[in-house]
């Protein structure tokens, strides 16, 4: 079997997210800190998944530093992005709507 580098990396020991290094399909299994999780959606390169379950209002930590706060509860292994994470500083914008 071809040996691939891990699909997800932990950038800093204090982080509660992993970053995707190569795209992974929905339904794939990933092992997070000893627990096997089935991904409910496909994850693209550069995107993040939760290392642990999170409550709304929890700080999301990447590079060992806060990158915003969870806006709702997040399950372990769930995709973390704009649907459940917001800046603690300033809003962002997309092509279709302001957020």
């Amino acid at each position: 079997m071809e040996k691939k580098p891990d699909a997800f990396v932990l950038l800093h020991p204090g982080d509660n997210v992993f970053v995707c290094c190569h795209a992974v399909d929905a339904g794939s299994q990933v092992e997070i800190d000893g627990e096997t999780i089935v991904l409910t959606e496909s994850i693209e390169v550069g995107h993040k998944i939760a290392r642990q379950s999170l409550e709304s209002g929890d700080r999301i930590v990447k590079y060992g530093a806060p990158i915003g706060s969870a806006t709702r509860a997040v399950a372990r292994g769930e995709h973390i992005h704009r649907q459940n994470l917001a800046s603690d500083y300033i809003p962002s914008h997309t092509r279709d709507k302001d957020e």
Partner: protein
Amino acid sequence: MKGYLRADGRKGIRNVVLVVYLVECAHHVARAIVTQSDSPDAQLIGFPGCFPNEYSLRIMSQLCTHPNVGGVVLVSLGCEGFNREALSVAIEGSGRPVSTLVIQQNGGTTSTIERGLSAVRDIQSQIDIVERGHFDVSDLMVGTICGGSDGTSGISANPAVGRCFDRLIADGAACIFEETGELIGCETVMADRAATPELGYEVRAAVEKAARYYETLGYGSFAPGNAEGGLSTQEEKSLGAYAKSGDSMIHGLIKPGDVPPGGGLYLLDIVPDGEPRYGFPNISDNAEIVELIACGAHLILFTTGRGSVVGSAISPVIKICANPDTYRNLSDDMDINAGKILEGAATLDEVGREIYDLTCRVADSERTKSEALGHQEFILTYKTFEPIGPACLPGRQG
């Protein structure tokens, strides 16, 4: 390495003749002069506005006397607000040949283009004989910018540039990183790296100014593509961007047009001073590149995840691609594949060395991908700045 020795004592890595329009009304004539000159070293820059602006005059003066520039042709309509006399005096004072063409005094479009072509040829023949002398890494000024960032930028290309910066600085070069609005969230760690506590205070104040400015405008410096590439928030983008600065001590805080007084790491504060006006601070990546060049940057290290293809007038742009998928898609535009770090095929240190080596070869005249493809983007708009305070350059007191 060899560089072009200028009359003002500075050393360049290119020998460019700039054709400069001083208002949009002179743009077509200036562009025709450049196009018909048919030389990669005859390049077009300009300022579109008719209202006078101290910042744009200062930036234009710094660009026209940049070490990579050998001589300048100024193209004026005649009635615009730009102070062409002051610009011409600044260029002459630097020992560079300059020729001013005023369309209203030259019989219009056709004859001004003809005179412009002859002025470019004349200047080229004068600067073809500029001496090329020894050019050391300690003579280099390098700027860095990220554009089209995604979730890979902060873990491959940006930290690799940081490693390259550390090595350049150890060798005596001046390195500049920027966009305080894209450093929102990094102010505390960044201030701790400042050479003095007073400089640390200035660094923090610059980021706070950026946060206030962008808040008034309603958006951070965060494009839709950033989100598509996996970045969720401004501070996440910032932490990734910050990695470009490496680990060296921050020697100073400068503003657009300030030339670093010596080697070391400098933060460029690009957010205007005073009440927000004239709109977003830098409306696109090239506005930032222009400001880095106005600070004397000989070349630009440009990291991208989504895949920017731009280059620049005046200074070569080295494109470092963070995302392996983007690299495969846009390899003709990319000088360095940092995405291989994510695939386990290289380490950050190895790619950092690759960037350092290419930087030296480009300084020694090798053309980058964007140069070979003819990219010479340029944009300059309105801004206002107060001069930097004494705490901003602690190495240069007294």
